[in-house]
């Protein structure tokens, strides 16, 4: 049995509660922890990070700190407002992707990416034939998302394979 740890760093209790329930119900063997403070805790496989805490933009700093001590973790920004400048800044700090909180479709895309990441982490290396494919799948999903943003005129950020 795998123990996949996911941290949701967000000061909105409804975001934490909703996302916790959704991830727990959709993904196998996950332990989801909600963190309301703008901190960078160690020991998680996946981080979902809000950008604003009490009106201050703290997400980039949190992501940068997590990336320093946890290069293998998947870090995703989950924000209510996304624009090109913000997305570029997030990717520069080591975030793999950013998702719009106000969209059901982007929640789906985010869950898919988390699932793929956890599958890859838990895969038996001897049996892996598609590790590279999985990495490419994650890249593809993020790239697809980025294209969608670009087509909406909101961003043209790089995919993780470029980042």
């Amino acid at each position, binding site marked *: 049995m795998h123990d996949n740890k996911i941290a949701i760093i967000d000061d909105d209790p*409804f975001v934490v*509660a*909703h996302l916790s*329930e*959704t991830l727990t119900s959709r993904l196998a063997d996950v332990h989801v922890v909600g963190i309301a403070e703008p901190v960078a805790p160690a020991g998680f496989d996946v981080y979902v990070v809000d950008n*604003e805490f009490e*009106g201050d933009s703290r997400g980039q700093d949190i992501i940068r700190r997590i990336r320093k001590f946890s290069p293998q973790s998947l870090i995703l920004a989950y924000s*209510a407002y996304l624009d090109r400048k913000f997305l570029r800044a997030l990717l520069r700090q080591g975030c793999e992707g950013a998702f719009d909180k*106000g969209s059901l479709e982007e929640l789906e895309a985010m869950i898919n990416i988390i699932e793929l990441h956890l599958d890859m982490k838990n895969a038996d290396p001897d049996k892996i034939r598609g590790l590279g494919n999985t990495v490419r799948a994650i890249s593809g999903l993020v790239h697809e998302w980025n294209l969608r943003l670009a087509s909406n005129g909101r961003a043209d950020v790089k995919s993780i394979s470029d980042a």
Partner: protein
Amino acid sequence: MHNIPAMKAGTSRILLVEDVDAFRLYLRLALEQNGFQVLEASNLDQARRLLRAGTQITSVVLDLDLPDGHGLDIISEIPPGVPVAALSADDSRETELRCHEACCVAILSKKKRLRDLVRDIAMVEQNAPKTRYQATLNPQLASQYVSYLCEARIELQHARSQHDYSSIRSIAHKLRGTAVHFGYSGIGASARALGSAIKNSNIAQIESALDTLVERLMDAAIVPQSRLHL
């Protein structure tokens, strides 16, 4: 011709708080004939005891003029998300506002015919916020969110009166990120429009977006078909 919405017997349990015995009895019988379970309380004290015992209820029909106090005195003791319909013969604007501030989903007029009252209560039950929630999350969370929407509207109106655009932006930001996931896509879209208007510092757009958002927040808390003064 108004049809009483069909209800599944046993799925609804209404706490009816009314001190006039004959009126309470007639209303209870009429509700039971339409498939509702009814718990009766003739005053605030009885209602409190039922609530404190953890009695499961799906809505409250609450007379405002009770022998041991005002009906709204008990609002804070009703579990979050359980819709409350005020029952009153008083059609004044003051009562309307007071019920609105207390987040009652409707004001039921005692001046109406019994059949129409039952229809209105059925609407409250049928359109209770929890039933709007389509996702697979637990009903308690959905109910808490409805209460949050009510609080957000009050905070938004207060911030607007103070021209506090920082707070307005913050409230819109939170609504933008959560509303769609709880089945309120219109609120999410309005909050997004408000956020954009604030970013652009366009006062006319801000005012217009605020109007729309407040209206949608009110719609979320008030059963659409029943609104105030049914």
